[in-house]
């Protein structure tokens, strides 16, 4: 009923910024510049771990065209960055902790002078022993990377008595799973630019996921006030977590501060690979036990997260990997520890899912192994254990509503049955094996057990033009578009009547990070609240204008109208004029912070206000003589609460699946070896199967029009579904990602499938 009445929600309107991108307008940071901009370059450490004895910049400064060489001593404020824990210098002080760590910033009139200056800076390093694995790093005699020790954080979830409960299980499975460093590979290399205006304001443009965080870090680095710096997000060509760090806005600001001249900094793809965060490689040892009906009784997990040289989002990854370690299932006895450890690898930070994709590979492999041990169908064992409304999670949180995992599994059932029936019929070649796999997940929306509010503002001018102000950085996912839908729905106008101003610290309120799949839910709520307040004022005003009862008025097509007498109406612009005349407020604020509680020392609490759920089915075929895997089809059922823009939701699902496929089969960043796109491959259009996205809407009462989130959930079930399908095809399981040609071929050989045979599938 309510659904049928929406005018904007649930409609796949055209994306707001699509036309300018399709016509090649200069919207990305590398596309525009300011007059007489200096070129910035960053000199980086060639060593993984070394003391810096001295940095000699004298020769570099003598090069014609070089305007400045800045080092740590030129940072007037606190030379330390990090959104959760502060441990990373903008420019190294007396020590470098990974290859690629920034040491000096060069500003020059042109590229050539900057390059010459890079070569002319003399840094005296004293190499230190380095450590490249989390396990080694925790050993007693390991090199000390940070003074406070190599263990950054440990998160524990303890509930019941897992060790004892394993004795009551009909099957217990224990395995160790590993995953690799992953590069984000957003298509737009990081870029920044800036100028100093006549009032001395430092204006910084950057491709970023969080302009307000960037501002905070810049004023801390430079010891300035908020009013002295303005950060503006340019069109951002993807992010996937990496642009939550201060990738280059700090360099732009530091140069502006000293040189008072416009500057630009554009990373090459090689520098993006060298300088920015990676997905944490995880080592997960997981023990899972169930009774003979398949009901999970206990899980135990020990998780090691390699955060590399710096924390970045490492603590969040440790927390999230622990909280998500049981997946979307009920289990009473839990013993999980997740440790985040420094090494001399490149720093790991946020990447789509914050550890959840890694643990999903483990817990979903375990589910299939349990199903096999207990002779239960893989889909059934998942449905038996699926969380429901009223279930309690491993953190002791009772989920009251919007638990859609059961519906996701049911949505997959018929596709799964069809796939099982066709598994052997459709095989055509003797050296080909087909497999079917399931992957499920849950994902907490927003930050883990910490405050993560968003603010928003909405205004109406005397012409009746409505403008939404949000600090939310749209990095391609389409948040800007759906925010106009939310405001339009509340105010009874079409979306083309809503203007929107985003991600500019001078004009927009802080919306927090575009991360943790949080913006639709959190900023969406803040915008809805501001719009609701505005609607209320307009109705009040209209009631007195029309001499009518407010309860009998509605807002539609830029008018307040009496419902049973539609001819009696007053326009928004008339209402706005009278509000302006009365000097009444014509600006309304919205604020939303999800209801969460922090996790206690046993990891108990309500870390998220709501969760997204999903179930995906993967059908793969394997060439057993080459190890080549062809993912034939993926069916993906995602509970998003409510799809405000269904095609954008499907876009997230399909994009997530592509990234999940890369994570499963091909992507691995090898520190010190992987240099560029020539040796790091992401899926192309040929690698991607037919995808059938299915949207499940289990209304979330606290969400804007029932919405939750989908950005990260889209990726999480894909790699377990593919890996389970591979095992189903070969009868041999792979425990390390990526399941690349070598690993798959090894599995083919081990399982006896490498032998040339007649087509035994028929």
């Amino acid at each position, binding site marked *: 009923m309510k659904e049928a009445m929406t005018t904007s929600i649930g409609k796949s309107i055209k994306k707001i910024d699509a036309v300018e*991108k*399709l016509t*090649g307008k200069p919207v990305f940071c590398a*596309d525009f510049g300011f007059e007489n901009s200096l070129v910035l370059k960053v000199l980086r450490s060639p060593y993984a771990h070394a003391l810096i004895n001295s940095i000699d910049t004298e020769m570099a400064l003598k090069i014609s065209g070089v305007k400045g060489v800045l080092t740590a001593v030129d940072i007037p404020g606190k030379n330390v960055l990090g959104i959760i824990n502060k441990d990373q210098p903008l420019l190294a002080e007396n020590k470098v902790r990974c290859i690629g760590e920034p040491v000096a910033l060069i500003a020059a009139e042109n590229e050539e002078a900057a390059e010459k200056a890079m070569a002319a800076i003399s840094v005296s390093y004293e190499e230190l022993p380095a450590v490249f694995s989390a396990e080694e790093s925790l050993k007693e005699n390991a090199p000390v990377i940070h003074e406070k020790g190599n263990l950054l954080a440990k998160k524990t979830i303890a509930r019941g008595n897992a060790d004892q409960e394993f004795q009551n299980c009909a099957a217990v499975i224990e395995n160790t799973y590993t995953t690799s460093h992953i590069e984000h590979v957003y298509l737009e290399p990081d870029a920044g630019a800036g100028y100093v205006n006549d009032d001395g304001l430092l204006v910084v443009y950057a491709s970023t996921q969080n302009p307000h965080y960037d501002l905070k870090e810049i004023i801390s680095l430079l010891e300035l006030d908020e009013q002295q710096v303005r950060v503006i997000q340019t069109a951002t*060509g*993807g992010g996937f977590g990496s642009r939550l760090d201060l990738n280059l806005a700090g360099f732009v600001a530091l140069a502006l501060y000293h040189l008072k001249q416009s500057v630009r900094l554009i990373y090459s793809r090689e520098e993006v690979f060298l300088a920015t965060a990676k997905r944490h490689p995880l080592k997960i040892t997981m023990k899972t036990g169930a009774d003979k009906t398949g009901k999970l009784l206990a899980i135990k997990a020990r998780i090691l997260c390699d955060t590399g040289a710096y924390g970045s989002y490492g603590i969040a990854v440790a927390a999230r990997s622990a909280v998500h370690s049981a997946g979307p299932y009920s289990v009473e006895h839990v013993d999980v520890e997740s440790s985040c450890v420094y090494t001399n690898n490149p720093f790991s930070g946020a990447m789509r899912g914050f550890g959840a994709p890694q643990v999903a590979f483990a817990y979903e492999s375990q589910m299939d192994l349990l199903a096999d041990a207990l002779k239960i169908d893989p889909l059934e064992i998942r449905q038996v254990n699926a969380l429901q409304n009223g279930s309690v999670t491993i953190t002791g949180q009772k989920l009251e509503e919007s638990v859609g995992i059961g519906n996701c599994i049911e949505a997959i059932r018929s596709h799964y049955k069809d796939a099982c029936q066709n598994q052997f019929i459709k095989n055509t070649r003797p050296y080909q094996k087909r497999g079917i796999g399931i992957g499920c997940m849950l994902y907490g929306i927003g930050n883990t057990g910490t405050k993560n509010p968003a603010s928003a503002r909405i205004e109406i001018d005397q012409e009746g033009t409505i403008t939404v102000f949000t600090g939310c950085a749209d990095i391609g996912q389409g948040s800007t578009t759906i925010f106009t839908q939310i405001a339009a729905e509340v105010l009874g106008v079409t979306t083309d009547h809503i203007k929107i101003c985003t991600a500019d610290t001078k004009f927009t309120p802080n919306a927090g990070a575009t991360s943790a799949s949080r913006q639709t839910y959190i900023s969406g709520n803040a915008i809805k609240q501001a719009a609701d307040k505005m609607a209320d004022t307009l109705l009040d005003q209209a009631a007195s204008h029309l001499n009518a009862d407010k309860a009998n008025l509605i807002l539609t097509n830029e008018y307040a109208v009496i419902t049973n007498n539609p001819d009696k109406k007053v326009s928004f612009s008339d209402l706005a004029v009278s509000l302006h005349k009365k000097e009444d407020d014509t600006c309304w604020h919205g604020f939303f912070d999800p209801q969460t509680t922090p996790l206690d020392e046993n990891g108990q609490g309500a870390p998220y206000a709501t969760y997204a759920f999903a179930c995906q089915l993967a059908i793969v075929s394997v060439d057993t003589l080459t190890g080549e895997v062809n993912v034939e089809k993926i069916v993906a059922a995602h509970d998003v609460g409510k799809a405000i823009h269904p095609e954008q939701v499907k876009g997230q699902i*399909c*994009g997530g699946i*592509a990234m999940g496929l890369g994570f499963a089969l091909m992507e691995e960043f090898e520190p010190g070896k992987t240099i560029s796109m020539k040796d790091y491959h992401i899926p192309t*259009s040929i690698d991607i199967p037919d995808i059938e996205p299915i949207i499940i809407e289990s209304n979330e009462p606290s969400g804007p029009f029932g919405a939750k989130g989908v950005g990260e959930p889209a990726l999480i079930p894909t790699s377990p579904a593919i890996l389970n399908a591979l095992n189903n095809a070969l009868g041999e399981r792979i425990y390390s990602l990526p399941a690349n040609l070598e690993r798959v071929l090894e599995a083919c050989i081990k399982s006896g499938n490498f032998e040339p045979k007649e087509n035994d599938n028929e």
Partner: protein
Amino acid sequence: MYNNQIKISLKINGQENTVHAPPDISALALIRDILKLKGSKEGCGIGECGACTILVDGKSVNACIMLAAQLDGREVLTVEGLNNGEKLSIEQNAFLENHAVQCGFCSSGLLMSTHALLSENPNPDQNDIRKAISGNLCRCTGYHHIVKAVGEAAKQSAGDENNE
């Protein structure tokens, strides 16, 4: 580095143009930095990602690994040459209508590959489409809506031809 500049005459987006440029710059640098057409993007600089795809004499190429000098005497089409003022081309419109744009950094290159495909093969099937755009990496969409958009563009342009 080089004081000598070379003269390059080309027809770009329908306009004859003669420019003087250093001999060692790429076609992409010529287009972006000298001709100031910013629609063609640099995503990798080594011909892997396809964000710089342009058409040279109707063939799609990666502008980042082609020398500017190679454009002398050639006819070049970039994304800016697709639309006619406000009026979007069939490809651009199909991408818009089919939600094929997310971050949009790969869009220009994809549009050029689409344009090349449709001029060579007006009735491409799914495989033809996937093959034609396989040199254009996209990290956001999983190609799902892009493949659909290219298919719709093909239908649309076939329809247009029938009308003529």
